[in-house]
């Protein structure tokens, strides 16, 4: 009897069960491992394969890097020190450090000048890259090209000053007439700048001191990673305004202007950069007046700028096309003329959309500056393949040098792309 009765008594727990720890499989690192590395059999196999790849890479490179020698003066000496053990011969980097960075002709007592120019570059670029900084700094950015030119090439200080005066004069004329019409201001500014430069040309020639404050360095003496950086920075900054103009021209309703822009862009995008560099090295000289002696650096800058401006134009065209038509119509209905509408409404939005694309082009262009080694300019790659590997001391030190070049480019390019991602997040003002 009592049995059946006992079953019908309900059991009600009046105290809470003490919290037990979760099963070992479901917490902490074990759970993470199970979910991320060994979820299924196939996944576990992949993990093992990946571990093996990592082991292969590390086991072949780590002893080589850690056993590296830094203080010898030639490859033969390196091999003696290593005595058959695995190890890199990093001495080549230590011994040829200056050549790798500055080329083999830049006077060594003047290295402080490009270094100072590089430091100033960071200061000049800061207000452009990070717009939380005070806007006053932009004045320095505007002055920077002239300062950098004077620091790197040296020579008479009158040259950059006259160039600067031309720009200032042009700007003054522009701001005087821009209220009337944008076109008058713009072309008036250009004419004023040209006049000042033309007159200034005679003055600098007449007044050029025999011993300038900074020794002049011809541009064929530039080289090494400095050359890559200079080409990259100059060409990207020159090609952004050109690219904007080309993109607007391609959108224009005037068939002739549109036609010129389309042909230019499609032509440049259709040929490899190396053919344009051939143009710079063997062909462009024929198109300058016979007495003008335009040096190779300038010719290369012209061609690379044309190259990157075509690509930037396409990116900006994408930005322009992505704007809703309402924006154009709104600008028109406010009674803004073309230049105002573009400057105040369309371009700020279109450029914002195009920033990631422009940064991609800039990174690609910076990598492409290594191609100048093919037309026998001694940039970083040209230095490595030319003077350093050909020298008797370092003939055969491939991996240290190529690895160093790869590392330098990786650091710069990866840095720029990380910046671009940060900027994209910063600028994402919609869909919050």
């Amino acid at each position, binding site marked *: 009897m009592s049995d059946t009765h006992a079953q019908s008594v309900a059991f009600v727990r009046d105290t809470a069960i003490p919290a037990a720890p979760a099963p070992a499989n479901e917490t902490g690192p074990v759970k993470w491992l199970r979910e991320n590395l060994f979820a299924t059999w196939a996944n576990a196999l992949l993990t093992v394969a990946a571990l093996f790849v990592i082991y292969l890479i590390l086991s072949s490179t780590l002893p080589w890097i850690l056993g590296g020698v830094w203080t010898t003066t030639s490859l033969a000496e390196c091999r003696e020190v290593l005595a058959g053990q695995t190890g890199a011969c990093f001495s080549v980097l230590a011994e040829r450090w200056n050549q790798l960075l500055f080329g083999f002709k830049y006077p060594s007592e003047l290295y402080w000048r490009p270094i100072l120019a590089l430091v100033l570059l960071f200061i000049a670029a800061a207000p452009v890259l990070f717009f939380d900084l005070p806007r006053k700094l932009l004045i320095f950015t505007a002055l920077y090209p002239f300062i950098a030119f004077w620091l790197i090439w040296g020579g008479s200080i009158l040259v950059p000053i006259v160039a600067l005066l031309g720009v200032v004069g042009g700007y003054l004329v522009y701001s005087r007439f821009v209220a009337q019409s944008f076109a008058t201001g713009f072309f008036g500014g250009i004419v004023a700048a040209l006049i000042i430069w033309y007159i200034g040309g005679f003055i600098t020639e007449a007044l050029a001191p025999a011993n300038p404050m900074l020794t002049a360095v011809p541009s064929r003496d530039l080289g090494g990673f400095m050359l890559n950086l200079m080409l990259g920075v100059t060409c990207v900054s020159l090609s952004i305004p050109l690219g904007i103009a080309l993109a607007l021209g391609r959108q224009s309703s005037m068939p002739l202007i549109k036609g010129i822009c389309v042909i230019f862009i499609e032509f440049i995008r259709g040929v490899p950069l190396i053919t344009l560099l051939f143009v710079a090295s063997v062909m462009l000289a*024929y198109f300058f007046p016979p007495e003008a002696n335009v040096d190779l650096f300038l010719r290369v800058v012209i061609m690379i700028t044309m190259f990157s401006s075509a690509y930037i134009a396409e990116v900006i065209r994408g930005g322009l096309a992505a704007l809703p038509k309402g924006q154009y119509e709104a600008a028109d209905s406010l009674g803004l003329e073309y230049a105002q509408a573009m400057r105040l409404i369309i371009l700020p939005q279109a450029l914002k959309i195009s920033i990631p694309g422009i940064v991609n082009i800039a990174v690609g262009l910076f*990598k492409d500056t290594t191609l100048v080694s093919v037309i026998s300019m001694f940039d970083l790659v040209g230095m490595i393949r030319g003077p350093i590997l050909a020298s008797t001391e370092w003939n055969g030190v491939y991996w240290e040098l190529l690895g160093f070049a790869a590392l330098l480019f*990786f650091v710069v390019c990866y840095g720029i792309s990380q910046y671009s991602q940060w900027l994209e997040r910063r600028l994402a003002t919609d869909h919050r």
Partner: protein
Amino acid sequence: MTTITDPPKGEFRLSMLLYDTRYRSMTLQVIAALVLALSLAYLYRNLATNLAEAGLNISFEFLGSPAGYDINQTLIEYNSQSSNFRAAIVGILNTLLVAFLACVTATVFGVLAGVLRLSNNWLVRKLMAVYVEVFRNIPVLIWIIIIFTIMTAVMPSPSAFRGDDPDSSMLFDLFAFTNRGVYVPGPYFTRGIGGEEGSIINWLLVIAVLVGSFFATRAMTHRANNIQEKTGVRPKTLWINLAIWFVPIILLCLVLGLAWDIPELKGFNFGGGLKVGGPLIALWFALSIYTGAFIAENVRAGIQSVSKGQTEAASALGIRPRRVMSLVVLPQALRVIIPPLISQYLNITKNSSLAIAVGYADITATLGGITLNQTGRAIECVLLLMLFYLVISLLISAGMNVYNNAIKLKER
């Protein structure tokens, strides 16, 4: 009384050319045309004076004269007595060869890395991210030089294969990796049509059979689709398709007597087999892994662009996971992936011009390199070179436009 006056008519002032919107665009275009014509005339005058001073003229006659240099890797017959034009053709074929090979392998690397970047496996995901970042952020020229250095400085010389106890040995006794290039077994026909000279006909025959098989399998799939539409039951096509692919080609090879010419050590070098030069391999492999990193990003973006709702909707309809991928996700992802993929192919073709850095005889190295230096015809050579790349690019982008129009979302 008010009178309505018309705006003044007919009175044309010069300032209207700039301020009246009816005339302004015309004025600007005339100015642009003038500026363009003047600058072209200026450039042309400079060119004419410079050429006259240097005693040169523009002429393409050099194309017919003997080239006078050898090319180590050629697809068609060529010797140093052949014309410059033939050297350029050899270069064009070499460019197309390396571009084609690199496109295929870059797609394989890219798709693999792109899919693995979305894997559930944390380690694999990170490894692929490292691959993509490392290869995207280092110039392709450095990669080409690195792989070329591996090919020339690390690989053993043919003499290392000699002797009773050689330092190096051939892989499976079929492949020899040496610093002069990679030797692989080369196919040839023992009972081929037309003897030695007719060998190209045999290869064309093989290609024709493969193309025929391709269309036959497509017809089979089409028929299976029709039957499925009508009856609801899909006939098994796998075995039939495999048979269509393999039976004819195997029969053809048997008839023609396909044999393999296996490389072997003869004296100081390897003889027999096909020699794939170090420069070709360096360029091919470097372009593949470099562009593969970019393609991986395109593939990842494409797959991620298909919204999760699509997969869930397909699962809700009861479609199996594998078919969800092939019927729902991939067709939509491909629409996003293919256009940038084709522009990567274009990039490969253009980047193949870096062959000149490692001495692979592509069009840039033959026409733009040796021919240019030997004849001094800078302007003509560079123009022809640009023309070639321009034609290739325009062809590829024309193809891309056709494709884009075909897959465009059909909207109302």
